[in-house]
């Protein structure tokens, strides 16, 4: 069951990953919020691409697998955008803890 593809130079990919890791740690130290988001998550995406494409051999894998993974992430996006309008509207300030509030405990059967 040996697949005929040449192994990429894994150590080189690893150097790239370490470099990106260093960048993502250094980026936030500049304390620019936008830059933090870009370095933190942009680099996470680049890193994950490198790992997926080379270490996981996705680059040499059938398109089917790409389709599968991208579809999963798209569905998560659907979930995010369907849920976001509701969770972003929380008030939270009208809350009374019923267990602490004796008057409504007495109402119980």
């Amino acid at each position, binding site marked *: 069951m040996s697949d005929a593809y040449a192994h990429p130079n894994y150590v080189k990919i690893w150097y790239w990953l370490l470099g990106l890791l260093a960048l993502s740690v250094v980026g936030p130290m500049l304390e620019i919020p936008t830059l933090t988001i870009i370095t933190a998550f942009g680099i996470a995406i680049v890193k994950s691409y490198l790992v997926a494409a080379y270490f996981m051999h996705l680059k040499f894998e059938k398109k089917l697998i790409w389709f599968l993974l991208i579809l999963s992430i798209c569905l998560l996006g659907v979930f995010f955008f369907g849920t976001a309008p509701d969770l972003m509207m*929380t008030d939270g300030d*009208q809350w009374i803890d019923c267990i602490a509030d004796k008057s409504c405990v007495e109402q119980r059967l």
Partner: protein
Amino acid sequence: MIEYFVQSASSYAGDIDNLFLLITLIIGFWFILTFGILVYLIIRFRRKDGVKAKYIAGEKHSETKWTHYPHYAVIAMDVVIIAVNILVWVNIKQTLPPRDNLVRVIGQQWSWSFIHAGPDGELDTKDDVSTTNDLHLKLGETYHFELQSRDVLHNFAVPAFRLRQDAVPGRTISGWFKPTKTGTFDLQCAEMCGYGHGIMGAAVTVHSAESYDTTMAQIQNGTYESHYQKRMGTKTDLPSNTSQVDDEVSFAVLLASIF
């Protein structure tokens, strides 16, 4: 069709009933058509000796049109339903008309508290009137409600108003209704809320202006007799046990009660 079972006592009850009727007509048509064809085909094409079934792949246009054309008609009717539905929905849930009065509804395990805004029309002022399990409303006024829950999810449901809204702990949900008929109606909790969910009811009484004022005065001077208690008192021994249910309920009566 819904009015036959439940009175319609709010301004938008009619809209919902009409939408229900529209959908009934549309899907009734489809249901009878499809069901009729299904039954017809089963009877028409029962196995007969020597008759071989046709070979139809259902891939050519001349064949698929028999499923595609009805299918386009389904799409057209879907669009009608969606359009009418959104009109009604925007009216009853999405927009709040200017209010005449305000009431806060608080659900908790397992009772309802109502805070009526009083003459000044504002909550959290001195003239607020609080009641438990008794909601009093003035005929023809547009009410806004602030719905809250103290513990778990509840649902503020008044079938006669065609009104249902979940009460979610941690948030205040606003909505509106406008009673158009006097009388006393059931208020239910229509969301599972634990052990006592089955008894979590209340009474909604819609008053004329004078009767409303007398009731409010009674509540404030302590001479008020709960409408909810009164209603429950007269109903406690309804078909609560089998002895009360007529033993000779005939099949015909049962059927008649359905239709």
